[in-house]
């Protein structure tokens, strides 16, 4: 039970002897307490103002465009003219648009191939760079560099590397007497080309794997070794289970990244529509075919698809979370 008397409040220690309060001090203290207890109008924290620019930018450049995009998806708007109401016409047209489904298929195929390969490549590089070799920092920097290069620059570099006539790859192949393929000009080689580009940029994921590898307790690996486990068994039964959360994170980000593929595809292209990824198809529909309304409808369907796939992955998130329960299962 708290003591309501003002003078019952604890005083700060003042030294070895307690000083007796004067009547004036007690009165002042009581007034302060009364003021604290009384309901008052709280002043807004200046923190709101500090974060306001972010909210304003988010509203202006994300929320409002999203809402406008939803409205646009119900119209026929040629960008350089006036929109006309179309209702759900864009969505019904989308259902039977072979080009849209083909670009979705191209994107899904790329994701299915490149995401696991990219994760495996990044993990492999991380494991190599987790050892004590000379120049470790230099190697880590080199492998991470692609992650900080802009997608357009990457596209321009690879356009030269994969050029069928004057490219680095076909030049090297020609030097050993092999006629290189039309990497981006032969439909059959477009997906392998993009996978190659994706693997080149796998260093971005490497960094997170390195952190995860460093967090795997050494004693577990040593205990497994004492019990006769080889390198593969230690990797499979000790290291990878402990890295599940980071693998899960990279899987989700990889899937989203694969669906959002645009920059290098915009620069590189690809014969037979094999480089026409969904984001690129949406862009072309809006700005080259003058169908911003239809492209907006595509964007919303695309959002639903990405949410569904990501949700599906999260549905199995238990598998990716290491716990005693998982171990027992």
């Amino acid at each position, binding site marked *: 039970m708290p003591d309501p008397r003002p003078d019952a409040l604890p005083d700060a220690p003042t030294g070895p002897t307690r000083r007796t309060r004067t009547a004036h001090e007690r009165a002042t203290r009581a007034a302060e307490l009364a003021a604290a207890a009384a309901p008052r109008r709280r*002043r807004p924290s*200046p923190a709101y*103002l*500090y974060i*306001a*620019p972010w909210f*304003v*930018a988010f509203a202006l450049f994300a929320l409002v465009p999203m809402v406008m995009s939803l409205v646009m998806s119900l119209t026929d708007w*040629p*960008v*350089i*003219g006036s929109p006309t109401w179309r209702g759900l016409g864009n969505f019904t047209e989308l259902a039977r648009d072979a*080009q849209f489904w083909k670009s979705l298929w191209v994107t899904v195929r790329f994701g299915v191939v490149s995401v696991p390969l990219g994760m495996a490549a990044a993990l492999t590089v991380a494991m190599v760079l987790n050892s004590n070799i000379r120049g470790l920092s230099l190697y880590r920097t080199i492998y991470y560099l692609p992650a900080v290069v802009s997608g357009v620059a990457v596209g321009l570099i690879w356009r030269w590397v994969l*050029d*069928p*006539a*004057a490219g680095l790859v*076909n030049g090297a192949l020609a030097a050993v007497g092999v*006629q*290189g*393929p*039309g*990497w981006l*000009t*032969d*439909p*059959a080689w477009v997906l392998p080309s993009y996978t190659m580009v994706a693997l080149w940029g796998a260093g971005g994921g490497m960094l997170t794997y390195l952190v995860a590898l460093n967090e795997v307790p050494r004693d577990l690996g040593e205990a497994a070794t004492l019990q006769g486990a080889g390198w593969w068994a230690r990797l499979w039964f000790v290291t990878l289970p402990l890295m599940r959360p980071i693998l899960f994170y990279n899987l989700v980000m990889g899937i989203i990244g694969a669906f959002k593929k645009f920059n290098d595809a915009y620069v590189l292209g690809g*014969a*037979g*529509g094999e480089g026409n990824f969904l984001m690129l198809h949406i862009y*072309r529909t809006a*700005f*080259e*075919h*003058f*169908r911003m309304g239809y492209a907006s409808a595509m964007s919303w369907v695309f959002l639903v698809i990405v949410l569904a796939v990501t949700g599906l992955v999260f549905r199995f998130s238990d598998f990716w979370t290491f716990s005693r329960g998982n171990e027992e299962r």
Partner: protein
Amino acid sequence: MRHRLPTAVAALALVLPLAACGGDADAEDGPPTFTVATWANETEADELDAILDGLNDAQDTYRLEQMVIPGGEYYTKLQTMIAGRQAPDLFWLSQEYVPAYADNGTLTDLTGRVEDAIDLDDYPPGSLDPATVGGALYGLPWIGQPYVVYYNADRFAEADLAEPDGTWTWTEFREVARALTDGTRYGYATTGTPPVALFAWGEGGDYVTADGEVVVDSDATVAGLELAHAIANDATATMPQGLAQSRGVESAFVDGTVAMMVGGAADDIERKVAESGDPFEVGMAVMPAGSVEHVTFNWTASTVLSATVTDTEAGLAALTDLTHAMFDWKIPAPVSSRVGDIADVNPQKAYAVDVVTRSAEIARGFHNQPQQNELGSVIWEQLEGPILSDGDGRGVGDLADLAAATAAKMREVVDR
């Protein structure tokens, strides 16, 4: 009181970005200033700036300023500017974009308003038609590049063949290509140049008529498509498609692997051959004729005047003056009286002035529609790509069926 400083800082952070969205008010007295949007590269932009400076110094009706937009993002930025009510006053448009912009009310109708300042009769029909939509003129072409056949004259001599004199047909072209093909070298190569439509035109067909009717499935067009398919996939005359794509047609011509290729009349082929390791004599010939019509493709681009320009008279004066000035530039002018100037622009073309002149006379563009880019995608994906690659080596079946399926999709786009 102690919250005032952070509050002021936060408020400033809010206001500054918004303030940056504003623009300078154009309240200067004097002639109107028009912005000219171009896709010129750095060198071209400098040259064009000099042209604009000359025009600005020569009169007091208007002033011109160039806005260079990189080619890769030219149309995206242009459309965004137009949608944001910030359209440049004058801008370049490649021929396939003119109908879409005209159809959406973005361009000023020039019909009957520029004839006093520019001789429209000097334009061959193949140059002016792409700037005309529904009988109305919406742009003044400033460049025209008819397609021609480049050939390796040394290979012709080696095979004891007479060099083409401009009267040949596609059938004769194919025979010549066969005679120039041996185990490692090919008579011809193509990956899409010239456009397959050219073969349809030569047989009296078309993809879309001037009235906008889709006729890609007509008998005459199908005959042209069959001709294109036969030549492109004749292994005894033409480099296989996969090899042509991996080698690059121009590279294969320059290094002597291919004896004939099609390109723009102003393409810098002669210099590239001269600078190659094993130079040869380059010849230029008029495109072979079809069984019905002798025709070649003409790539053109126009300068257009935005419909948002309020001082239209000054805008029209700026447009016509600029067009005249650009005819004196280094580009191949799209008017009959200046075709021969190609030798002044590039002395290495002097040997071919007659061929370029003849090609300009028979050159034409597509009957572009407002949905041209979308139609182009359909045509390439469903028709021309499979024809050139023989369905990626699997064959294309009955071309009449392929054309009918393409026509159905095209009609869907046009009728939407």
